[in-house]
């Protein structure tokens, strides 16, 4: 039997959470070290998994299947393909850097890391699920800890409101999808002659076109809420702003991908005919995300809201890519999930560092941070360039195919979406100028100092991925391509 690497990745954070819970609350150093060790272990395993995936043979690899409730067709069934492998890696990266960034957190670190790791287990679990029941199981586990993380450690003004709003939005989304999933489950009983939640079998269930068209909107939109799709996006910026730094990184970096990924895996892949019928309006919604998100971001005065709405805009590109249902668009979307995940984690990390010292996020009150924290500035600029889709960075590798795919769908979609590039450039440049350059207000200059070494390690490691993929796209492009081939096969070569 091969080493169950995926299970190790999924349950490492959960086991670490259990260990952390058992440590006494005042042993803060031990708690942090345990958290760091677990996160490093998970990242190493994710890297190993990523690089040992055999792109040539494609398909789902490292599969593990154990009975969970055989009589009802539920199994613990995991495996990765070219789409989920980068996302597992992304989660590993964000988890490790999130721990580094939160090192100084002093209010009950035990509970903080424990809840954060429970969340991480849920995220890993969704990305590797090949069983629909299991996917929902982990999906909810990934969503709920946000409530506590934002509510306890978030910024005082809005945290209770934001935490409640986020949890309700996402819960509503997931139960809507759940009803659709149960409908599929029983429909497959009729066509396959057995009850199963196995997604590889459900793919072959041969649902009738009318059935697919009926249920697709519920399943897709239910998950897409977590992807931040318009008009169900506004839990997301509120959540980002209220959340503590590491949680914002997780939220924008990983959780929103969870929504887009689940919408793809369950919505598009299990109900391809439904996807074909409904995609035209999903393209429109995604287009609104892209353009409207960018415009809203550009008028924000709060540093964190800018990044929050930029996430809405960029996640719109992910959805847009998927919604084109063609090879280029979907490849771009797959890459964008990774690229945006790392980029936005980096953004939020820097925002957190600035806020921790300046105690304000209002852009007009900031300035001159480049002199005090040059590392943060450089990394922020890198993320900014990724965000603008500058060649040489991962954003270009991801966004260019999305626009190509959109052009194939219809040229005007690409043209409208391209407006966002200009707007994005404008607000990113404005933020960089106002926050990092210019002169620092006198009352800040006295107490602002450089970021810690751990922070620098975190920022640099995030930047490495952004630049690495940008310069050497073969690290990821063929992998995602193999994943997309599988979806295209399900769509019947469309």
């Amino acid at each position, binding site marked *: 039997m091969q080493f169950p690497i995926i299970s190790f990745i999924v349950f490492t954070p959960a086991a670490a959470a259990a260990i952390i819970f058992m440590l006494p609350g005042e042993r803060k150093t031990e708690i942090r070290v345990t958290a760091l060790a677990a996160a490093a272990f998970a990242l190493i395993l994710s890297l190993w998994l990523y690089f040992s995936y055999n792109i040539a043979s494609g398909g789902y690899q490292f599969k593990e299947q154990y009975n969970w*409730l055989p009589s009802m067709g539920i199994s613990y069934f995991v495996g990765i393909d070219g789409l989920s492998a980068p996302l597992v890696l992304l989660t590993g990266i964000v988890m490790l850097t999130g721990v580094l960034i939160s090192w100084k957190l002093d209010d009950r670190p035990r509970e903080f890391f424990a809840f954060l790791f429970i969340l991480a287990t849920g995220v890993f679990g969704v990305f590797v699920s090949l069983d629909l029941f299991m996917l929902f199981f982990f999906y*909810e586990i990934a969503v709920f800890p946000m409530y506590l993380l934002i509510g306890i450690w978030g910024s005082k003004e809005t945290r209770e409101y934001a*935490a409640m709003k986020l949890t*309700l939005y996402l819960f*509503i989304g997931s*139960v809507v999808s759940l*009803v659709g999933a149960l*409908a599929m*489950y029983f429909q497959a009983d009729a066509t396959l002659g057995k009850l199963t939640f196995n997604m590889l079998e459900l793919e072959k269930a041969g649902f009738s076109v009318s059935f697919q068209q009926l249920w697709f909107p519920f399943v897709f939109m239910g998950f897409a809420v977590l992807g931040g799709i318009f008009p169900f996006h506004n839990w997301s910026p509120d959540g980002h702003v209220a959340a503590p730094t590491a949680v914002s990184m997780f939220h924008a970096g990983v959780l929103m991908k969870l929504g887009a990924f689940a919408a793809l895996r369950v919505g598009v892949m299990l109900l391809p005919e439904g996807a074909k019928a409904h995609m035209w309006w999903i393209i429109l919604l995604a287009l609104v995300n892209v353009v409207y998100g960018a415009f809203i971001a550009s008028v924000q005065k709060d540093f964190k809201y800018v990044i929050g709405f930029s996430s809405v805009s960029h996640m719109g590109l992910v959805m847009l890519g998927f919604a084109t249902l063609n090879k280029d668009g979907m490849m771009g979307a797959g890459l964008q999930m990774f690229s945006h995940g790392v980029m936005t984690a980096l953004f939020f990390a820097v925002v957190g560092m600035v806020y921790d010292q300046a105690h304000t996020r209002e852009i007009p009150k900031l300035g001159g941070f480049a002199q005090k924290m040059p590392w943060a500035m450089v990394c922020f600029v890198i993320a900014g360039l990724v965000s603008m889709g500058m060649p040489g960075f991962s954003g270009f590798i991801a966004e260019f195919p999305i626009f190509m795919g959109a052009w194939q769908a219809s040229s005007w979609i690409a043209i409208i979406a391209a407006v966002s590039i200009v707007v994005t450039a404008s607000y990113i440049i404005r933020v960089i100028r106002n926050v990092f350059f210019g002169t620092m207000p006198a009352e800040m200059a006295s107490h602002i100092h450089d970021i810690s070494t751990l922070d620098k390690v975190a920022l640099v490691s995030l930047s490495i991925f952004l630049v690495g993929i940008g310069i050497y796209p073969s690290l990821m492009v063929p992998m995602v391509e193999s994943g997309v081939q599988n979806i295209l096969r399900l769509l019947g070569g469309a």
Partner: protein
Amino acid sequence: MSAELLDSLQAIFPEIMVLILIGLVLLFDALWTEEQRRNLGWLTFGGILLIMAATLAVVHPTQQGTLYWGRMVSLDWTGLLFKMLILFGAAITVLLGMDVENLGKKGEFYTLMLVSVIGMMLMASAYDLVMLFLAIETTSIPLYILAGFMHGDDKSTESGFKYLFFGALTSAIMLYGFSILFGIVGSTNLYDLSMAMQFKNMSPALLLGTFLLILVGFSFKISVVPLHFWAPDVYEGAPTPVAGYLSTASKAAGFAVLMRVVYTLYSQVGFNWALLISVIAVFSMTLGNFLALTQKNIKRLLAYSSIAHAGYILIGFVAVSQLGITSIVFYLGAYLLTNLAAFGAVTIFSRIVGSDEISAYAGLSRRAPVLAFAMLVSFLSLAGMPPLGGFVAKIWVFAAALKEGILWLVVIGVLNSIVGLYYYLRVLNVIYHHRSDTENQPLPISTPNAIALIVLSIGIVLVGVFFAPFFNWSVLAASGWF
């Protein structure tokens, strides 16, 4: 002893054992001093566990079930599983009650609990209307007393009286329904009755009448609309462990009776009772959840939530299928663990702090992290979050209805669970997010309470993650039907 007698004894084995335990409790109650009497709790707890083990070892029902004692009692898997749930619920309630003032050191508490256990277990296996009525009364009368046990406390007295008053009234109405059935068929045996209803041409109007009358009694037991209104007042005033017991074991016994009587007697009749029950389910869920939104007292909130949960369970009930029964049994099991944990945490909290107001829970996560975590687990399970028992339970209930094509009811159930999540989060919000001046004061938890909470919390997670064995037992309970 003849083999036949042994078989007959098997059918009421746990009841006999509990009766012996009652004798022991009464004996030691007389022998022990006031200070030693707390040990009656350990005696009862240990006794119940032994009875559970012995019952599982001794009692072997057949798949289809067999009738004993003049066809009064059925020995089947459904009954046996419900008996296990009831015994477990009672054991935990005893642990929670041991350290409650004016309750834990009184032999009457344990005796009355055990008498009601006998009644509930007979409810779960009664196959005859007379037996059923006696079982219901054997259950109810000790519970009336237990609800009003704190005789110095006005609220508890009110609670006892209210429970007695509505309980007696609904029992009488139900008995009236029973007597009409007896009048038209000439038998009180469920099998005879169902045969007569199937093959003799009986007026649907008359049958509907009996159905409604009987339903009054059962709705009271499971506290669904329109006979739900006693629950908040009774739960609020009753000693907290007793309220937990009422909302779990007593409700489970009520569902056992509801399934047995309605599925046996009315499965072939000419009116659509499933629609009626669906409407009741909708109103219970909606009313329970919406009224829970505004509650300031945690026991009242849990009372309304338990009304809503009875509504969810009815969704599985109207599926009228094997999966439906499986889901009901599974749900009741998960719900029993969950709600006992919630009431257990409330018991512990109010014993030290002396308040049941939700606002008093501010800062609890800093003051008593373990207790707060137990509340987190139980409330999330009530809300239906994985990896906890409530999640899986809800999925099966919805799945059962969806399989039968009752989509509209599932949609209402889903919408309701969103409302539910909101008010459960409101409590967790106070526990986890609010601060208070008292958050540095310790909140000691006594040994029996700690055992109860740990067992329940682990149980909730276990049922939520490794649900296969629990599900298979529930399937076993459903196997004799349809």
